[in-house]
C-alpha cells in the first residue's frame, strides 16, 4: 500500500474509531511470574489500554517489556502454575470480563472472537500434519463444518491469503512451504472463524525484509476487508508507522505513552519514546554518533540494564593519551560522518573466487552438494567497513566463517596484506589468527557460560602468550573492560549475569585483547534491542576510529549497514549481486534485487524515522 494513502486512510479511520465503543478494554492488568517459592517477578504492571472496533493498535516495546505476556494473558494462555494475574485486573471484551469466564467460554472465544498469530511460523505449525489437516481442524471444531465443506473453505482461505495453487498446497507439509507462506497459512487459520480481534505477536520478526513487506500488506488488507481490530505487537517502530492507528509504548511492564500514530511519532512526550524513535540509524543521514537512550533518560530512569556493571561512558569515551590527537572529534550532534573510500587506500584483505559447498543427503544413500558461496570476491580496506547484506540463506554467515577460517573453503583464496592465508584457522600461524577476529550474532551463545569474565578475557592473552603473569593479564583485562564501558567488578561474574548488550561488549573486548586488524561482525547487533543496538554501534565506531580496525559488517538490517558501511556487498543465494560504495548502492541501486530490498525497508508515513 502507498504509505501516504495509508496515512490519510488511517487518520479518518482513527477519528471514527474513537467514537465507537471499545471492543477490548484492558484496565489495571498486573501479571506476576513466580521465580521460586518466595520471589515474584512483575512482568506486567497496572497496564491499561483499549482496542476500538476496526482499529489497529500497536503494542511496542523492547524485550522484557511485557508485551507478549499481555497478549497471552488476554487469551488466558499463560501457564497457570507460575503466572498470577492480580484480582484487580480487568479484561473487558464487549463488557464481559474475560478473566472470570469459564474455560468453555474461553475456548469458544479463541478463534471465533479473538485469534492470534505468533512470531515463528515454523514452530507454530505442527510438522507432522498437512496444511489442509491443520486448517480444516479449526473449521470443523469452531464452525461445525463437514470434512468436504471445510476443505472447500480452507482452499478459499489459502486463496485469500495469497498462496498460489491452494489445492495443491493443502496436501503439503509445513516444511515444504517457505517461511512467508507458512506465516500466510497461520494467518489463514487465524481468520478462518471470522474473529473480531486479531492479535499478531511479532508476525514478521522471523522473516526477511521483502517477505515482511508482503505479510504486512496482507495484514493491512485483511484488516480492512474483514473489518477486524488488530492488536499488533512489535519491537519495530518502523512497522508501527505503516500499520497502526494507535500506539501503546511499553517498558518494564508499564505504559510509557499511548496515543495516535501521528501524535507519538511527531510529538512524543515520554523520553523513552523519544529515545526509541531516535536510536534507530536513519536512512536519510549519517550522524557522527547515534543517539542512545542515555541521551534522553535521566540517570534515575535509565535502568534498562544492571547499571552498577556499566562504567560511566561520557560523551567522549576516548582515554587520555596520544591517540586523541589523531582522531578528529567533531560535534557529535550535527556533524555527518563521511563514508566511502578515498583513492589509494591500503587494502588489507582480499578474497578471490571463494566457493563453499555443503553436502546434503538426497534419497537413502545419495548426496549432493549445496553451493553456499559461488565465486565471491571482495576487498577490505584498512580502517574501513565493508557491509555484507543478504536475506536468510544468502550465505553471508558462511562467508564470514570461511574468511575467519572456521569453515574450510572449497575453492578460492584469501590474502591478508598480500600474504596467502591457509584455509582453516588450525593451519594458520598464531600471528595470523590474531589479526582476524569475529564477533558473533548471539551474545548469549558466544560466551562460555562456565567461564567468568576474567577467564574469558584472559584466555586469548594466555593462548597468545601475552602477559607474563596472571596479575598482568588481569590488569590488561580491566583495561579492556574499561574500553568497552564495563566496570571492573564485571571480572568475577559469569556471562548469564549480564544483559545482551553487555555480553556483546564482553565479546568485543575478548576480540580486542588480541589487537586484531580485521573484525568480522556477524549480525553482531541483530539480537539486541534498538536502544542497546545504538550503544554497541557507537562503541564499534569508536573502536574503528581509535584503532583503525577494518570491519566486515554482516547484517540483514539495511539501515544499520547504511550507517556503518563505507562499501556494501549484496549477497543473494551465495552470489554477489551488487558491490560498491555505500552511498552509491543505497541511492542509485543498479540491480533489480537491490532495488527490491531497499523498497522493502519499513518507512513510517510521517517521515520521522
Amino acid at each position, binding site marked *: 500500500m502507498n504509505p501516504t494513502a495509508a496515512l490519510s486512510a488511517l487518520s479518518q479511520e482513527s477519528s471514527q474509531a474513537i467514537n465507537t465503543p471499545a471492543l477490548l478494554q484492558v484496565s489495571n492488568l498486573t501479571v506476576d511470574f513466580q521465580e521460586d517459592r518466595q520471589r515474584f517477578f512483575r512482568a506486567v504492571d497496572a497496564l491499561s489500554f483499549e482496542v476500538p472496533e476496526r482499529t489497529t493498535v500497536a503494542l511496542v516495546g523492547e524485550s522484557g517489556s511485557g508485551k507478549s505476556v499481555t497478549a497471552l494473558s488476554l487469551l488466558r494462555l499463560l501457564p497457570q502454575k507460575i503466572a498470577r494475574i492480580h484480582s484487580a485486573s480487568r479484561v473487558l471484551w464487549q463488557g464481559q470480563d474475560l478473566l472470570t469466564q469459564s474455560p468453555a467460554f474461553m475456548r469458544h472465544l479463541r478463534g471465533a472472537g479473538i485469534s492470534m498469530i505468533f512470531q515463528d511460523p515454523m514452530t507454530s505449525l505442527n510438522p507432522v500434519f498437512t496444511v489442509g489437516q491443520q486448517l480444516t481442524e479449526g473449521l470443523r471444531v469452531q464452525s461445525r463444518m463437514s470434512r468436504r465443506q471445510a476443505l472447500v473453505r480452507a482452499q478459499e482461505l489459502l486463496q485469500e491469503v495469497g498462496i498460489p495453487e491452494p489445492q495443491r498446497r493443502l496436501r503439503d507439509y509445513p516444511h515444504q512451504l517457505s517461511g512467508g507462506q507458512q506465516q500466510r497459512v497461520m494467518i489463514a487459520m487465524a481468520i478462518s472463524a471470522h474473529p473480531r480481534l486479531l492479535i499478531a505477536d511479532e508476525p514478521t520478526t522471523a522473516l526477511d525484509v521483502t517477505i515482511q513487506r508482503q505479510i504486512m500488506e496482507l495484514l493491512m488488507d485483511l484488516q480492512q476487508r474483514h473489518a477486524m481490530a488488530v492488536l499488533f505487537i512489535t519491537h519495530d517502530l518502523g512497522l508501527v508507522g505503516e500499520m497502526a492507528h494507535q500506539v501503546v509504548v511499553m517498558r518494564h511492564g508499564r505504559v510509557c505513552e499511548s496515543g495516535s500514530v501521528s501524535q507519538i511519532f511527531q510529538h512524543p512526550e515520554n523520553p523513552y519514546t523519544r529515545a526509541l524513535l531516535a536510536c534507530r540509524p536513519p536512512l536519510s543521514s549519517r550522524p557522527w554518533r547515534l543517539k542512545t537512550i542515555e541521551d534522553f533518560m535521566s540517570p534515575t530512569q535509565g535502568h534498562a540494564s544492571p547499571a552498577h556493571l556499566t562504567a560511566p561512558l561520557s560523551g567522549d569515551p576516548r582515554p587520555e593519551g596520544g591517540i586523541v590527537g589523531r582522531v578528529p572529534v567533531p560535534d557529535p550532534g550535527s556533524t555527518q560522518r563521511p563514508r566511502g573510500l578515498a583513492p589509494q587506500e591500503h587494502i588489507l584483505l582480499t578474497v578471490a573466487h571463494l566457493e563453499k559447498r555443503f553436502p546434503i543427503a538426497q534419497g537413502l544413500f545419495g548426496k549432493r552438494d549445496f553451493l553456499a558461496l559461488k565465486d565471491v570476491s571482495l576487498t577490505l580496506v584498512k580502517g574501513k567497513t565493508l557491509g555484507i547484506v543478504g536475506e536468510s540463506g544468502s550465505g553471508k554467515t558462511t562467508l564470514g566463517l570461511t574468511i575467519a577460517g*572456521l569453515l574450510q573453503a572449497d575453492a578460492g583464496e584469501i590474502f591478508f596484506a598480500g600474504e596467502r592465508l591457509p584455509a582453516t584457522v588450525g593451519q594458520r600461524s598464531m600471528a595470523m589468527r590474531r589479526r582476524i577476529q569475529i564477533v558473533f550474532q548471539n551474545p548469549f551463545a558466544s560466551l562460555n557460560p562456565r567461564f567468568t569474565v576474567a577467564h574469558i578475557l584472559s584466555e586469548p592473552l594466555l593462548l597468545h602468550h601475552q602477559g607474563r603473569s596472571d596479575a598482568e593479564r588481569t590488569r590488561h583485562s580491566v583495561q579492556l573492560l574499561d574500553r568497552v564501558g564495563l566496570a571492573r567488578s564485571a571480572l568475577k561474574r559469569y556471562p548469564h549475569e549480564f544483559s545482551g548488550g553487555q555480553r556483546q561488549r564482553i565479546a568485543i573486548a575478548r576480540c580486542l585483547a588480541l589487537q586484531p586488524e580485521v573484525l568480522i561482525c556477524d549480525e553482531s547487533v541483530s539480537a539486541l534491542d534498538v536502544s542497546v543496538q545504538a550503544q554497541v554501534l557507537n562503541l564499534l565506531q569508536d573502536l574503528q576510529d581509535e584503532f583503525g580496525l577494518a570491519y566486515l559488517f554482516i547484517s540483514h538490517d539495511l539501515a544499520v549497514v547504511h550507517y556503518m558501511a563505507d562499501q556494501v556487498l549484496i549477497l543473494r543465494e551465495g552470489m554477489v549481486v551488487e558491490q560498491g560504495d555505500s552511498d552509491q548502492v543505497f541511492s542509485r541501486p543498479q540491480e533489480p534485487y537491490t532495488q527490491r530490498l531497499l523498497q522493502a525497508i519499513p518507512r513510517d508515513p510521517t517521515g520521522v524515522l
Partner: protein
Amino acid sequence: MGASNPDLATPSSANPPREEEYSAGLWTLAWRRLRADGVGLISLGVVGAYVLLALLAGLGWVAPHWSAEVGTHYAPPSWMGTSAREPDFATAPQPVWPGSVDLYGLQDPLADLLARIHTEPGASLVLIEAPRRTTLPLGADKWGHDVLAKTIQGGATSLQVGLFSAVLATVLGTLMGALAGYWGGKVDDAFNWLYGVLTAVPYLLLVFAIAAVLHQKGTSTLILILGLTGWTGVFRLMRSEYLKHKSREYVLAAGALGASHWRRMFLHILPNTSHVILVQLSQNVVGFIKSEVILSFLGFGVPVDAVSWGSMLNEAQNELILGKWWQLAAAGVAMAVLVTAFSLLTDALRDALDPRLKS
C-alpha cells in the same frame, strides 16, 4: 487462571535485587536449588550415610568380623525371640567324610584359598569358642554369621563395585563420546561401530563372555566387567552433547582466538556437559549396584571369602524354602533404600543442574 485467585500477597519485589549477590557459578546455583529440594536433600543424606558406613566398614571400624560365627544355626532376629527350635546336633546322623576327594586329575580351584585359611587361621575367619547366641539383631545365617554385620560389609562391597564401575564406565563413555562427537567422520564411524557391536550382544551374554576372558573372580574383576560393558549409554549421550556444542558460537569463538582442539574439547565443552556426566554417573551407580546383585546371584560375583548383597540374596534363595527370611529381608531392604535414594538424588541433581541458566 489469575482472576479466580485470591488476592496475592504483594510480591517481595518486582525486580529482585541480584546486585549484592556475588557471582554464583553453576555449582553454587545448583547447590542452592538442591538445598531447596526437600526430597533431594533427604536422599543426599541417605546416600551420604550409606557411603560413610561403607567407608567405615571398609576400614574395618564397623562390623569387621562379619565371618565370625557368633550365633546359632539360623538364629532368628532378636525381636522374634528364640521360638525357633534348636537343632539337636548330638543325635543327628554324622556325615561320613571320605578320607580324600578324588579330583580326577583336576586341580582344586579352592586349594590356594584353603591353604591360606589353614596357615593363617583367624585372619579372615574368626572362630569363637564363646557360647553362640541364640538370637541376633537381624538374625543369623546357616553358619551363624551375624546378618547385620554381613549386610553392612555387603553394602560396602556393593557400593565399592557400584561407584568404581560407574566411574570407569562414565570416564570411558565420556572420552569416547567426546572424541566421536567432536571429530565426527571416520572417528565417529569407528566408535559407532564399536557401540553398535557391543549393544547388539545380549547384555548378560556379554558379561559372561568378559567374565570368561578375565578368568578370575574378585571385586576388581566385577568392576572391570561392569565398567567395560556399561559405557554405552554415557557414550551415546556425550556424543550428542559434543555434536551439539562443537558448533556453538562460544566454541567457534575459542577456535577463532586460536584455542587448540584439545582445549576446545576439554576446557570449553566438557564443563558445559558436566551436568550430563554427573547425572549419568549417579544413574550408573544405581544400575551397577543392581547388576552386581544379579551377577553375584548368578554366581559370577564376589569371591567366596567376601560378602555382598548379591551373594546374600544368592544364599537367601535356599533359606527361604526353610522359612528363614531374615537374610533376604535385610539385604533386600538395605539395597532398596539405597537404590531409591540414589535414584531420587539423580532426579534432584538433574533439576538442580539444569544448564538453562537465567537469561
